[in-house]
């Protein structure tokens, strides 16, 4: 097994002078500051020689006091070893610019676009630095920089000027506030880039092609996003994605709330998987603090997170089956009925249906109620029979197989290259699960299998989710058998001001690998929280995946990814 120390010494010997500063946190975490001129070489060496084939994203930081910007490249591996390398590149705050990694990793594209539009860090060699999440009028004001004057903004709505257009639509112009004008943070010169519409129209080659809009409003996706497909006849030739319709700026807001208040925002990031988001944020803070979670609290967390996984997969699968309408309106209703049982079980502990704010630093908020164990067991027994019924039902249904088999196939190599994680990756046959790879809490002690598919098509993705639910039930039953008595919170006092430090923590969200990079500067608020969402990564793979399919399969493919645009937009 490769360890962080071995990785570090390997880089140092192969590329002398590239590592300016380094810190080995544990066997699995490597922090290194890399010479900006050599970042591409280092990453190429790590990818080719040290099998760091999983590019997990980029985080931009604005160190205003040191007058510099920092880009953190998060690199991991698909099962070859468990080291996560956090490579930092520093650049001066005036005209910040670093080398792009898009040449090495295909999926660096969106992460770098985000860092550019939010912080104004230029990526040399990036194929198209277009805004991804922000509306056009905010591009150029760099909202995530620490000196951005447009936050807090309580007047956005009042300032909006309604402009009716000639074709019967309404446009809105939101002029800048006086404060912004005084501070001079209003972009006077906007970056030049073609709009989405112009980029789409550039691709139109002949009269037989046309652009079809799907969205932004869509009935069965829990959040709006725009999917434009360029079609010729029945075939999709190219797909375009536009998101940011529910971009709330959670990462910016969390920088302006206390540490504890931050937990409520993680709930609202992906509201069908809020417990794993809680876990991810709290785990990162616990890592900075060096806290140990009491055993009983760990058991409670695992039980609830697995229950949350079951309900998330139920609603995800149900939504998807309504998308391919003729096949699955009835399963949707059954799945929602079953989901209600799980929800009421979670509610009996946390007191909320969706937004729990239950996991706390060093423990959980409250203990399991009386009689939870018996109630849970009986519900799980019922759920198991229901899920087996669903599996049987889908196996027998010929229409289901006609719609789903061999549709939207991803090969294992493509899936790894594109950075997909979670059920879409496991459906291709790659047994990559953070619960096994980078285990947290009790997961190393528990017995469970990683459900994998064989073909990587839509049917396999659903199959993997259904099997995963059975595994989750198995995990919860083990936990209920073993749960000890004891405290549910750590006895150590949690300080209001978290000591300076940084941590990267990964959990297995129902949608895949979720990571949070939390930086503290010793204050009572986080300095920076970067969320590496699973669906953000999966979302990015949609346009290439949709090329060449029939229009009718577009919803089947897009839906089988179990989308949560809210978490992608943040």
């Amino acid at each position, binding site marked *: 097994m490769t360890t962080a120390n071995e990785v570090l010494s390997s880089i140092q010997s192969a590329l002398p002078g590239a590592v300016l500063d380094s810190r080995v946190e544990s066997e699995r975490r490597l922090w290194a500051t890399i010479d900006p001129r050599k970042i591409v070489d280092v990453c190429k060496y790590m990818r080719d020689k040290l099998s760091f084939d999983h590019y997990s994203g980029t985080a931009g930081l604005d160190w205003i006091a040191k007058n510099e910007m920092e880009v953190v490249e998060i690199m991991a591996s698909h099962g070859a070893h468990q080291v996560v390398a956090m490579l930092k590149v520093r650049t001066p705050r005036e005209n910040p610019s670093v080398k792009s990694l898009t040449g090495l990793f295909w999926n660096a594209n969106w992460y770098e676009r985000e860092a550019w539009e939010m912080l104004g860090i230029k990526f040399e060699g990036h194929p198209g630095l277009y805004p991804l999440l922000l509306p056009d009028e905010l591009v150029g004001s760099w909202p995530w920089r620490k000196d951005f004057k447009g936050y807090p903004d309580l007047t956005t709505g009042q300032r909006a000027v309604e402009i009716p257009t000639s074709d019967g639509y309404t446009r809105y112009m939101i002029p800048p506030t006086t404060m912004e004008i005084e501070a001079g943070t209003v972009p006077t010169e906007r970056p030049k880039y073609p709009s989405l519409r112009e980029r789409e129209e550039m691709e139109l080659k002949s009269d037989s092609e046309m652009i079809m809009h799907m969205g932004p409003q869509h009935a069965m996706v829990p*959040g709006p996003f725009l999917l434009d497909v360029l079609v010729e006849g029945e075939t999709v030739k190219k797909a375009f994605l536009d998101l940011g319709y529910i971009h709330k700026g959670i990462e910016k807001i969390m920088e302006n709330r206390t540490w504890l208040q931050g937990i409520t925002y993680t709930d609202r990031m992906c509201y069908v998987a809020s417990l794993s988001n809680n876990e991810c944020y709290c785990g990162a803070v616990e890592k900075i603090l060096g806290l140990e979670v009491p055993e009983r609290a760990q058991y409670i967390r695992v039980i609830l997170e697995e229950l949350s996984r079951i309900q998330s997969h139920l609603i995800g699968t149900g939504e998807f089956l309504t998308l391919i309408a003729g096949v699955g309106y009835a399963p949707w209703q059954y799945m929602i009925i079953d989901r209600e049982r799980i929800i009421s079980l979670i509610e009996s502990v946390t007191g909320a249906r969706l937004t729990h704010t239950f996991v706390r630093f060093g423990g959980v908020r409250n203990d399991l109620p009386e009689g939870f164990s018996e109630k849970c067991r009986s519900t799980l027994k019922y759920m198991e029979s229901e899920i087996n019924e669903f599996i049987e039902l889908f196996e027998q249904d010929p229409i289901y197989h006609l719609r789903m088999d061999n549709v939207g196939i991803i090969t294992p190599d493509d899936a790894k290259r594109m950075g997909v994680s979670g059920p879409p990756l496991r459906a291709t046959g790659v047994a990559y699960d953070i619960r096994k790879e980078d285990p947290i809490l009790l997961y190393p002690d528990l017995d469970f299998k990683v459900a994998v598919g064989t073909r990587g098509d839509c049917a396999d993705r659903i199959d993997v989710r259904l099997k995963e639910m059975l595994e989750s039930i198995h995990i919860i039953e083990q936990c209920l058998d073993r749960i000890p008595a004891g405290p549910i919170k750590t006895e150590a006092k949690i300080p209001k001001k978290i000591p300076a430090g940084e941590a990267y923590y990964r959990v297995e969200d129902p949608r895949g690998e979720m990571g949070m990079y939390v930086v503290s500067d010793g204050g009572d608020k986080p300095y920076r929280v970067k969320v590496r969402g699973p669906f953000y990564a999966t979302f990015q793979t949609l346009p290439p995946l949709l090329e060449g399919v029939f229009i009718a399969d577009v919803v089947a493919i897009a839906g089988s990814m179990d989308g949560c645009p809210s978490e992608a937009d943040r």
Partner: protein
Amino acid sequence: MGISDVIPIPAAVDEELEKWTIFGQPVADVWFTTTEKIHQIIEMGPIKNVFNWGRKNSVYFLMQPMGCCGVEMFVFGAAPYDSDRFGCIPRNTPRQTDVMIISGYITRKYLPVFKSLWDQMPEPKWVIAIGECAISGGPFYDSYNIIQNTGDYFPIDVFIPGCPPRPEQFLEGLMNLQEKIKQRKDRRGY
């Protein structure tokens, strides 16, 4: 213009008809009139109550999930809470709906889209704002990208507080809207 100009009836009958009134309006005016005039008359008469009875019992809502409340909206429309009992059925396109449920935060980028969804809905139409975000921006009130004063852009009839509200509260809000329609107290005055 009299009725005898159009239909061959004796002038005496015409004279008699001109004396007739319907809700205080001359019958002749009503016969040779515009849709607008008919609407005015319907507005005054008790027939409106029959119309509103029908409207209140078939409030189809736009399935338009935008946030956490959107997930609760799924559940509200599905079997466990069964909004069908109140004549409230989820529809996928704005062109088939009567009620728009604002189920989350409206951002700068989404506001024009949302407005055009609203414009596509046929009259009569109502709006329900669900959750703190739709009412005032909720936990994201100070974000650079969120519209706080949703009520200035959409004539909201019912506000349902909560973060997110439970599906039972959805039902209560729906019943409040139905009562408002029945009593002709909704914002757009149907």
